[in-house]
């Protein structure tokens, strides 16, 4: 599965457009790592636990998008976009969407 965030897959021809595919995941942020993050908030700097958590979640959302694309017979996804929104206090939704295509 090839993924780009431009309209094409470089070096390949798009044979067929198969429509939009998407994947999402909602994660609560205040579990376990919250205590350490609270301490880190005093001195500032990177919250490594949160960076990892969000990376894992985004990876999962992307996997869901990929399996949706595979289900409709695509072998690439173009024009991929990511978005993050806070749904309720303490939870974030990670959303990824793109256009499933068939390339040669």
């Amino acid at each position, binding site marked *: 599965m*090839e*993924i*780009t*965030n*431009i*309209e*094409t*897959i*470089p*070096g390949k021809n798009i044979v067929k457009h198969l429509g939009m595919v998407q994947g999402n995941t909602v994660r609560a*942020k*205040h579990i376990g790592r919250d205590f350490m*993050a609270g301490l*880190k*908030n*005093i*001195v*500032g*700097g*990177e*919250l490594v636990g*949160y*960076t990892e958590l*969000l*990376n894992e979640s*985004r990876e999962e959302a992307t996997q869901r998008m990929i399996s949706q694309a595979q289900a409709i017979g695509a072998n690439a996804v173009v024009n*991929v*976009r*990511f*978005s*993050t*929104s*806070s749904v309720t*206090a303490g939870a*974030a939704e990670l959303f990824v969407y793109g256009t499933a295509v068939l390339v040669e």
Partner: protein
Amino acid sequence: MDQLINLGIFLSLVLIGYIFGRMAERRHFKSIREREANLADILTFSERKIPTDFDNCRGQLVSGAVVVSVDYFKMVSAGLRNLVGGRVSAYESLLERARREAQLRMKEEARRLGAKAVFNVRLETSAISQGQNNQTRSVEVYAYGTALIAPANG
């Protein structure tokens, strides 16, 4: 007496935040500058259209993310700034650090893949945790784009 203790805790948190926050920020900016110099040969573009120079390259999505928290001193000073308005420099440097760091991580991934350039770079910023008075304590920046990899590199 209780109020005095609370004031003492507050002031020491502000002081700790000021000292360690400044140290951490300086160290971070130094490492950002060094790594930016190392990765200067990987070009990034925000445009979608790929010039014909890269015609025989393979494209792959690369990304970098970072969550950076503001220190206690900066949070308090930003709160005070809210009263009078104007530039909130405490948050300016926070966002600058986060953006440059996220782009560096994206470039590092591109370097691992042997890419020469990254096209259609998008930066997304979101507030992560909220403190008292709904004040933002940390931000996440996510940078992503399409890396172009020359065929010789696989």
